[in-house]
């Protein structure tokens, strides 16, 4: 075996495959990885354009979702029904009357 094939086989042993790398990149957003996980992932990403792209995209979505809560809620077309609204209003007014009393 020539030297670079040996190196390649070592890399494959210590580096995760794409499936594991995609999982690790997601987990990075939730907790810190161990030193060896970080090392393996970094190596994998050096070699794999798809996983680099995957990581970039899930990080974009992760960062974007936070801070767009209102836009997301605004996309729901269903509204509070008139009936529910009336029911709540009655309940609230009753409650307000009882709390207003000394």
């Amino acid at each position, binding site marked *: 075996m020539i030297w670079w094939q040996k190196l390649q086989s070592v890399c494959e042993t210590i580096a995760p495959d794409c*499936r594991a790398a995609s999982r690790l990149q997601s987990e990075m957003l939730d907790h810190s990885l161990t030193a060896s996980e970080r090392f393996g992932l970094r190596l994998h990403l050096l070699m794999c354009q798809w996983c680099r792209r995957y990581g970039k995209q899930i990080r974009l979505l992760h960062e974007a979702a936070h801070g767009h809560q209102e836009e997301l809620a605004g996309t729901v077309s269903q509204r509070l029904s008139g009936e529910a609204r009336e029911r709540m209003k009655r309940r609230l007014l009753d409650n307000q009357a009882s709390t207003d009393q000394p």
Partner: protein
Amino acid sequence: MISLMSGETPSIPAAKAGRSGLSDPERWLEEYGDFLFKFALTRLRDPSQAEDVVQETLLAALKSGQGYAGRASEKTWLAGILKNKICDYYRKCSREISFTDLEFYASEEEDRFERGVLGREAWNHELAPQQWAKAGESLDNELFWKTYGDCAGKLPKKVAAAFHLREVDGVESKEVCALLNISDRNLWVMLHRARMALRRCLEINWFTK
């Protein structure tokens, strides 16, 4: 910053509103009823449960005995109370429902990768992540968020609860685990699958459309 872990009403500086002639609760219902309902519905999926938490939110707001000066912050204040009520609901339900819906999208994840040399799984070339055009600009587009909402709406209910808490509301992982009564590992698996599904859904329906 409002703590999502406490079920209590966030305290706010006192200021009576009442400028429109309506009482506070009526005005809240009028102005923010739909917003609060939609906010709750994206997280709970069930209209009657969403109505319940909105009602509890308004009752709690009323009970705190204070209105709020400044319209934008009043909305934020009510949304803060609503988030706590939704968390209370999750907390209550996590004892009744098991959050172990981990079979979700397993088959889809299988398809995504191909077993190669030495059993190593690499991306299936046709399903691998594509280049996204104008990714940054999409975030300002209302239609993008509609698509995002539709995609998130396809997640199984329990996974969606974890996803919304963590990704949208930015709650820390530890807190999400405590709320949903699941282990760290379960949460990470759920979120990984949810992100993978959402990424793919947006790629198909938005970024490469």
